[in-house]
């Protein structure tokens, strides 16, 4: 490679090797110490009989320093928002403020038991109430549940309510319309709720084809699930026509709120005809992704759907204190034990407090500004399949590069060498070889410039030496992994090597 392709963002550094924790284990090492027992010892054999466990198998025995080093070494093999831009489209990888982590660990909140009396749970209830009020104001909806544990469970909850609503009208209806640009969770959720899925084609501008919708809409349709802005980062400009078409035939409009980072403080789904929607607190409201959860997926609804919210809901009682209302005969029931991922409510509310109305609006503006800056910087270098204006994310394709045999995943792997986490690859499905880029508001101009420079440099590399890109990543501790072998003969746990005879 010529020197012009040397990356400015990252360089090589020592990386510690580390085996599996089981490979460090040996009898007699320990990282624990219990206080002396202040009650009589028990005879476990007598108490438990044949139910007594004698052996804990291959559980490790290691010391505390080994544990600290083990997990610290593992952590250094990950990329993270704390290290730099993480432009995964649709995932909204924004800064996770540390005050959120601090307040979630305050004793009293961290140690509150879900079944402690309401009288001594007013603090937690107040947090749930305040967050609910804020989210309702932000979405323009009427009522909300915080119970769903993640976005997909929010979808499930929302569709259960759609179903309960239609049942209350005398007909559960048969199907859910889903645009071809939708997240995979949408059709999977519809199936879970017992609805058939009918695909809805996008038009040449990347939006819901309103004429096609009009043709497909009938009284078998329970709801349309739309993501807005959609997964192309495009705002559905005819959203109100879409809502009208549904409502005329008694259908409901569901909005997947995955992309709310483009709207907060600028537009409210409740104002443009949405009946039910979920939010992802781990996207829009800065709670950490944590390597794949925990999430939190509140569902906000219009008044007509509020009788169907999961139990319990937070209410203000006659004496002015807060409590849980379980007496909701039309409720869809419960979707999770207790009240949801409460720790995430704390973090999301801390984020809203840190921003205020002005900060929330500026955040949205910066997120959209960043995506459009990248779009401008890479237009002409990568194919832009839809010229429709972008909101918070931009979707390119590998059309130009694939002529040299280099696909979106290969470009992504090379981007790792430049010190960036890849964008989302091969999604949405309506774009062949998609590069879906969502920078979020958390990136300074300098980081965006580095990213644009890296992407341009990779495009040049594809022209000069496509094989080099196909072999990427070159600078990681391991090269591309054999995923086929992993799936063909799955090894899903460690086992000790068979001992010699």
């Amino acid at each position, binding site marked *: 490679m010529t020197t012009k392709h040397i990356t400015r963002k990252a360089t090589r550094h020592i990386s510690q090797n580390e085996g599996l924790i089981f490979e460090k284990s040996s009898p007699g090492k320990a990282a624990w110490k219990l206080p002396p027992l202040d*009650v009589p010892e028990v005879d476990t054999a007598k108490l438990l009989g044949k139910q007594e466990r004698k052996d804990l198998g291959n559980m490790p025995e290691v010391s505390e320093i080994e544990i600290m080093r083990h*997990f610290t070494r593992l*952590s250094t093999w990950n990329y993270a928002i704390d290290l730099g831009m993480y432009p995964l489209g649709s995932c909204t990888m924004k800064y996770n403020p540390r005050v959120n982590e601090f307040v979630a660990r305050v004793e009293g909140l961290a140690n509150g038991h879900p079944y402690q009396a309401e009288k001594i749970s007013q603090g937690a209830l107040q947090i749930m109430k305040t967050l609910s009020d804020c989210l309702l104001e932000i979405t323009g909806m009427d009522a909300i549940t915080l119970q769903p544990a993640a976005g997909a469970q929010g979808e499930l909850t929302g569709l259960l309510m759609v179903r309960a609503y239609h049942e209350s009208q005398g007909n559960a209806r048969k199907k859910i319309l889903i645009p071809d640009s939708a997240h995979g969770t949408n059709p999977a959720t519809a199936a879970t709720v017992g609805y058939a899925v009918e695909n809805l084609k996008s038009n040449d501008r990347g939006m819901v084809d309103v004429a096609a919708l009009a043709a497909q809409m009938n009284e078998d349709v329970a709801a349309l699930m739309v993501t807005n802005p959609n997964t192309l980062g495009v705002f559905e400009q005819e959203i109100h026509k879409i809502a009208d078409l549904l409502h005329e035939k008694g259908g409901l409009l569901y909005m997947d709120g995955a992309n709310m980072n483009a709207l907060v403080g600028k537009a409210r789904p409740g104002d443009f005809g949405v009946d039910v929607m979920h939010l992802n607190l781990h996207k829009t409201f800065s709670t950490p992704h944590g390597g794949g959860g925990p999430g939190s997926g509140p569902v906000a609804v219009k008044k007509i759907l509020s009788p169907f919210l999961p139990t319990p809901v937070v209410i203000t009682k006659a004496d002015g204190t807060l409590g849980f209302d379980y007496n909701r005969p039309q409720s869809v029931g419960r979707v999770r034990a207790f009240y949801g991922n409460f720790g995430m409510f704390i973090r999301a509310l801390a984020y809203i407090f840190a921003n205020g109305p002005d900060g929330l609006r500026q955040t949205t503006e910066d997120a959209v500004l960043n995506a459009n800056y990248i779009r401008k910087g890479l237009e002409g270098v990568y194919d832009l399949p839809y010229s429709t204006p972008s909101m918070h994310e931009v979707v390119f394709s590998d059309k130009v590069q694939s002529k040299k045999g280099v696909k979106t995943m290969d470009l992504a792997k090379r981007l790792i060498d430049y010190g960036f986490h890849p964008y989302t690859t091969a999604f949405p499905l309506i774009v062949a070889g998609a590069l879906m880029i969502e920078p979020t508001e958390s990136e300074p101009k300098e980081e965006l410039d580095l990213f644009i420079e890296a992407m341009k440099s990779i495009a040049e590399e594809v022209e000069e030496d496509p094989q080099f890109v196909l072999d990427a990543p070159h600078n990681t501790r391991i090269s591309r992994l054999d995923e086929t072998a992993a799936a063909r003969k799955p090894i*899903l746990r460690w086992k000790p090597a068979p001992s010699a005879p």
Partner: protein
Amino acid sequence: MRYLPKSPADRAAMQQAIGIRSIDDLFSPIPAEYRLARDLNVPRQMAESEIVDYFKQRAKENGEGYTSFLGAGAYAHYRPIVIDALVQRGEFLTSYTPYQAEFAQGTLQAIFEFQTMISELTGMDLANASMYDGSTAAAEAVMMAVRVTGKNSAVVARSLHPEYREVLTTYAAHQEIPLKTVAYTDSGQIDLKELEKAIGDDTACVLIQSPNFFGTIEDVEAIADIAHKRGALLIVSIAEAVSLGIVEPPRTADIVAMEAQSFGVPLGFGGPYCGVLATKDKFVRQMPGRLAGQTVDKNGKRGFVLTLATREQHIRREKATSNICTNQALVALMVNIFMTVYGKVGLRELAKQNLAKATYAADQFSKHAKVLFSSAPRFNEFVVQTSEDPRAINSRLLEHKIVGGFPLKKFYPELGHAALWCSTELTTRSSIDKAIDIAVGRAADGDNSDRNLKNPEPVEVAR
């Protein structure tokens, strides 16, 4: 705004580069009538110090400093300091699902170790990367059993956590999975005769909990025999993971649906927690959720990837095994570190202390009230029946900053004035003695020196 890294000059330069005059140009795709022309009505921007103050204030109104005897699916155990030190490393906290394996080996190897330890502890062949919580894990396990067996109904123990049963009812409603409930006997264990009768040709699975909601340990082997004889799978839900240190795991089960909160996860008013599914090798392709697998890179070096993704929603869409996407990775890491800290010997000793404390507490209670279900073994929870309504007892305890047992009337009205009490390694003998004194109506001013009354007046039992 302190989280936003741009100066006004940066913004101006970027707008110029894009070719717009005002930021509003970028929002023009939103029809004008839907653009918000006012400030959101949310609290004003706060300083960090104000945010900390707000939440400290809420914490004070939230049972801070109380001694609790609550369990019932959420358990107070000691959390080793290294857990929070490690999970707050930005590389774990602020990374995404490890789809780009070369850049996420830390998370992937940690998941692989988690899967290994959960498999070891549950006696299953394999485990997934996590589910939302114990309740949804149980519901997903039932749906999995339906796929595996091709049968469509489920038999559920009434001694399964009532909120888990509620969640299952919600999930099953539109999958057309009829549910039958089987009662418990005087031992607190599931009624085996009734179970035998409840299983039919269309029964995909039997779902029990052990230790069950009353803290009673079920005879899993006998239940497995009954289920398997009729071609049904056995799903065992475990809500108190620490029990696995001393209670024989459900090796004869087909699926274990677990809540791992006890392993180093804060009570946190009910979440986030950590569900897990573990099962036998032969069922892996019907399992929901993410799985990390071992493989090699092109130089033969060991590495880990997410695998068997063809089960999942982003590939299979409406034909996926579940709609689950985001799970509980960071919480699973807490669980992972906890299991590593206690390990092979510590987990047993920890479980033994729990058993000793609960045994002591139940023995003390039995001097004044009726401790139900004493003929079967139990772990760290037990049911106390009193003449007085436990809600009245709990009000009295609350005045002494003690949170009493969980009143069972709401879910098990047939038990009368009964409550579920829990003691863990964190429960002290003096707090047990004090709580009992107050519960049975003897004045407690914090001085327990005279707690052994010569003639304790036995509390009348409601049954």
